[in-house]
């Protein structure tokens, strides 16, 4: 009993082929869109790779790029096939390819779905990468004289200004880090030496933040030093002051930015997946209806099209048994040292004719 059987007249088959040709070309365009979205995401992640720890998150844009290219190729081929399917004689060219093509496209649409789901699941890995990366970047903020780290000050400052954030989870992260290099500390001053001595690891820590944390919306000039000391500044209370510095942490800001991009991309990929699925269904119907037409012999007659010839259970069983037999033919029978001819009882005696028959004179035939 076929799954979802639909009857097709000749005109309906022709129309289906034409519509599928257009849809396949639209799918090529969506494949290009998928490719460019993957490229965009790759560029965005690479832009800030200094702030992300060594985690493999590049697999998501790489997957999208590969899926986009394959979609272009598969749908281009599909467009050619559907264009030829209007004519039964041209269909014969593609007859043997179509079923493998449909099976490949089915597994490909699964890849598209996996790609869409990956976009949403990348969130946690990204958070971890950003947390570690930002911590490192802040620690090396002061090392502007060390090769390989000299650009981190500029990167962190531009990040804090652009994304309107301060520190990893908040501005207080800067209080636990020495962000002023020893080169710029005046060791002749008593308070500097005292502060260094009072710290266990000999780090110069203070309740101050870099200038890039300053909030441009603040009505008063920025207070960067002695932030927790209310008496150091006139008319200032740091517990209630939320306009002076950026209150958001940079990890949160970057995460929101990337999550927004990923969600948009994920949604687009899901819509592309649904579209590909509908095109695949149409191609399957076209293939089955054309094969039935050929079986019936008359190219103008009606024919049936279906998704599966038998019910789902039977098809699954048939396919599993095919796979099992493939598996068996690869197994080696180790009982007879691998020789399949030993100990196989002959089912019929070989007939060599009766025994002890004297040889006849051969008659020469000219």
């Amino acid at each position, binding site marked *: 009993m076929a799954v979802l059987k639909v009857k097709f007249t000749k005109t309906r088959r022709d129309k289906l082929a034409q519509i599928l040709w257009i849809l396949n070309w639209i799918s090529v365009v969506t494949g290009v869109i998928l490719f460019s979205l993957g490229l965009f995401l790759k560029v965005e992640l690479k832009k800030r790779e200094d702030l992300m720890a060594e985690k493999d998150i590049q697999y998501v844009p790489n997957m999208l790029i590969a899926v986009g290219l394959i979609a272009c190729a598969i749908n281009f081929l599909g467009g050619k096939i559907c264009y030829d399917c209007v004519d039964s004689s041209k269909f014969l060219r593609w007859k043997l390819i179509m079923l493998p093509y449909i099976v490949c496209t089915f597994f490909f649409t699964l890849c598209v779905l996996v790609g869409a789901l990956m976009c949403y699941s990348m969130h946690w890995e990204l958070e971890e990468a950003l947390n570690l990366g930002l911590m490192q970047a802040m620690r090396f903020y002061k090392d502007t004289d060390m090769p390989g780290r*000299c650009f981190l000050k*500029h990167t962190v400052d531009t990040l804090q200004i652009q994304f309107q954030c301060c520190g990893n989870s908040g501005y207080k992260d800067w209080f636990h880090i020495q962000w002023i290099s020893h*080169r*710029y500390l005046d060791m002749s001053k008593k308070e500097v030496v005292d502060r260094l001595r009072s710290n266990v690891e000999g780090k110069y820590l203070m309740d101050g933040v870099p200038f890039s944390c300053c909030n*441009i919306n603040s*009505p*008063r000039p920025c207070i*960067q030093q002695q932030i927790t000391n209310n008496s150091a500044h006139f008319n200032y209370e740091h517990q209630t002051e939320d306009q002076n510095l950026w209150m958001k942490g940079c990890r949160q800001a970057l995460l929101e930015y990337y999550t927004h991009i990923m969600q948009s991309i994920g949604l687009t990929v899901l819509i592309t997946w649904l579209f590909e699925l509908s095109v695949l269904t149409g191609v399957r119907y076209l293939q089955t209806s054309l094969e039935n037409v050929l079986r019936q012999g008359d190219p103008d007659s009606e024919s049936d099209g279906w998704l599966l010839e038998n019910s789902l259970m039977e098809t699954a069983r048939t396919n599993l048994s095919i796979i099992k037999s493939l598996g068996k033919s690869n197994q080696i029978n180790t009982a007879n040292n691998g020789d399949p001819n030993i100990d196989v009882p002959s089912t019929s005696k070989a007939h060599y004719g009766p025994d002890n028959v004297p040889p006849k004179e051969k008659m020469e035939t000219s």
Partner: protein
Amino acid sequence: MAVGKITFTKTEREKLAEVLWLLNWISVVTGAILFGLGLFLKIEIQKWQEVMSEQGILYVPHMLITTGLAACGINYLGSKICLDCADTNKFLRWKLVMMPYIVCTFFFTACVLAGALMCYSIRSQLEEALYLGLRNTMRFYKDTDTPGRCYLKKTLDLLQIQFQCCGNTDFRDWFQIQWISSRYLDMTNSAVVDRVRSNVEGKYLMDSVPFSCCSTLSSRPCIQHNLSNPGAHAHYDEQSQQLNLWRRGCQQALLDHYTGIMQSIGLTVLLIWLFELLVLTGVRYLQTAMENVIRLGDPDSESEGWILENSLAETACYNFSIIKSLGKCYQADDDPNINVPTAAAGQEVPSAQVTS
């Protein structure tokens, strides 16, 4: 003696009409581009209009916008006319309109040229507007509690961060302005009171700059205070001083930004002007060729087309005399019939015999 005379066969006339129809449609597109450029310039100027003292420079984008719209209209009409000009019968419909159309388009192309030249000439006006505007904005930087000025701090901070500049001409402009409001000054502190008293106008001036002047390219944390005293900071050498703050003045930065935009726009408008002139020349040739064909009577014959029927000097004289006579007939002469001598009765001329 005609200027630029060319002989046109029938096929040449038809081809010219077709080519002009296409060129007129391309000109509609360039008109839309002109409109878009004007709109873009208007938006760019309005983005930073708070730091400009007067809005007079907005006449440049307005000119470009109106010219663009006029170009679309004129060239659309032109394409319709040229499409009909391939056929002599249809040309008769447009015969009376064509001469005024060509004159209008000629003056219109002059407007396009004026628009292009304006883009280049506006620099000095912009410089003045920016200087005054930035000076005022810096003066009102501290007035975040005064309505109408409360956003100027944010605007100026954003400007300095985005354009990587500090002050009007230099970061030292901040030393002459009180940019910290009195609300945040501790008047019980003797140092503060001394500084305010030592200033003639009672302003709190100091040698420091706001945080938005800090350069992100500096290798050391930003030094904003005690800038005139390099010795107050550890290892504050010449190179550190160069990299510490943004060195460029915001007037220069904005001027460079807008000059770049205007030059590109001006170049594009000049190219569009040349194209319009080309199309106008073609339409003029087509008009004169078609009129000569009608004068000759035979629609399939050859005809001549020109830019001007007589030489430039003669045409100029002729037009001036037309304008003068127009002027004369508006002069107040009450009764044109007074003092006109009548013919004498004895000089009647016998009527001529009419021969059939």
